[in-house]
């Protein structure tokens, strides 16, 4: 089963294509990294996959053919958006209540135990938590839904190195525990080295490279994901105008 399938997918804002002719199949059971510079179309692709955006061209489906954004799709997907939006004025306990109420499955015991481990008090308002704690809260709420696909948009961009490590450790532990698939976007290449088993390289609105990390490294003869990605990204960058 493919957790994300896109064919000829495109999204245009005004006259500019944020994403163009995107065709890819991300197989289940992977931690897939969506890599590319700022403005490459990563968030656009993720928003299309969770149904927050409507395609201008082509189609995208998730979890084996469920239309993106449909109830069946959202039932099996948990999405943590960029900057981890939470209701800042609600106490953590109420964020748990709201998330549990809005979903068919919710593992309340997991959520409470996990927040306890993280030292996040249930009575504190979400807006008064540190950036790292807010990210962990958003992630915990997403994981407690027991999704089959977890989608993370730039999850660690705002976090310090320790919080980054903790965040990714939580994601990997959950993925390893129940075979959940993960799709995450990032422009921090070093973070992905340890976690990604599948790579999608996006630049200027188009897919440049997609495949299993091990295969890509073998085929292209690169030692690391970072080198591989850099090679491709440098090829497609905007030429520097000499002075």
């Amino acid at each position, binding site marked *: 089963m493919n957790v994300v399938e896109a064919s000829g997918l495109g999204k245009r804002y005004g006259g500019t294509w944020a994403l163009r002719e995107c065709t890819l199949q991300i197989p289940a059971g992977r931690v897939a990294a969506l890599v590319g510079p700022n403005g490459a179309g990563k968030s656009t692709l993720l928003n299309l996959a969770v149904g927050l*955006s*409507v395609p201008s061209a082509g189609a995208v489906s998730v979890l084996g053919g*469920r239309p993106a954004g449909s109830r069946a799709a959202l039932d099996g997907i948990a999405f943590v958006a960029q900057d981890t939006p939470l209701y800042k004025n609600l106490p953590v306990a109420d964020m748990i209540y*709201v998330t549990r109420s809005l*979903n068919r499955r919710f*593992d309340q015991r997991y959520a409470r*135990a996990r927040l306890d481990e993280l030292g996040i008090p249930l009575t504190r308002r979400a807006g008064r938590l540190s950036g790292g704690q807010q990210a962990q809260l958003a992630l915990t709420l997403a994981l407690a839904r*027991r999704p089959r696909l977890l989608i993370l948009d730039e999850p660690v961009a705002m976090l310090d190195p320790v919080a980054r490590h903790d965040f990714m450790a939580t994601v990997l532990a*959950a993925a390893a525990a129940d075979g959940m698939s993960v799709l995450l976007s990032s422009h921090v290449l070093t973070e992905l080295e340890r976690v990604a088993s599948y790579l999608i390289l996006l630049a200027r609105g188009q897919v440049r490279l997609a495949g299993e990390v091990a295969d890509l490294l073998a085929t292209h003869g690169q030692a690391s994901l970072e080198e591989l990605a850099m090679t491709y990204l440098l090829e497609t960058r905007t030429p520097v105008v000499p002075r």
Partner: protein
Amino acid sequence: MTALTMPARPDPDGASPRPLPWRRMAGVTWRQHRIALAAVAVLLGALAVWLWITGTPLHHAYAAAAACHPASSAACQSLAGTFNGTNDRMAGGTTPGGVLLQLVPVLIGAFAGAPVLARELETGTFRYTWTQGFGRCRWALAKLVLLAAALAAATGAVGVLVSWYYQPYFAPGHPALPLNQMSPFETLFTLRGVAFPAWTMAAFTIGALAGMLIRRVVPAIIATLAVYATLAVATAGLLRERYLTPLVTSNPNPPGTAWTISQWWTRDGRSAFASPPLSLINRFCSAPPAGRSKNAPFGTFAQCLAPHGYTQWTSYQPASRFWPFQWIEGGWLLVLSALLIAGTIWLVRRRAA
């Protein structure tokens, strides 16, 4: 740090799971909007206490005068004077309390209605809420309907209290007693009966739609104030008097509780003028001094002009039409609110991140 706690294995799920029950939105809506709802409750509670405190002496004075026998006795006339002298603390809505009461719907629309969706869009939390399993359209529909119903119920209760407050003024007249009477149309029509909750609901849904269109809280509040004010002024000034065709009478003294729409004069069956010109008054009505002519009641003109072939006509809405008018106004505002909610849901559905 180690991650000891793991989520359990997901249940097998079908390709089209059953929708989640609507009742789940009750707790969600309450938790998200309890501060706004509490603020509305405090505001309406304070107004209710004020209405009760100021309305009680009014009712006592009226009951004493109405129960007095024989009506023509000096004691009864004095009691009627006491009732007429009891201050109408609302003064037709011109005191601070009365003004605040009239602002309730627009305040609710601007500060409870406009932020409902605008804040989600402004802070980005819609990306959390709209990707939960409940579904964004059902989420928006449940939230808007629940809040609109709660606000309508609360303002409906206050509307009953305003009706109680003004009851003595609208009571059937006592011919022998000179008790003050008011037209139920001209005295805070929108704060009584079904009009008050209906206007509140309309203001709330105007705010919700403005928030969804504009996507920012403060501009949405301003837009709500402007749209509501336009609608309220247009309804009071143009629309309401046309709900039913007015009655027309040539009786120079239409009932005191009637709502006068317009007056005009005819002579020999042909339209003469809207109000008698000064030359005519000077010619035929020279009895009242010229300085007083502007303030002279129309009855006087009617009396002195009638022998010369002039007839005064008055079109009016009788007080008995109060409830039909209330239901007409409540009805179209309810339909408007439903359309505004439908429009908001349509925008939620097609809104692209």
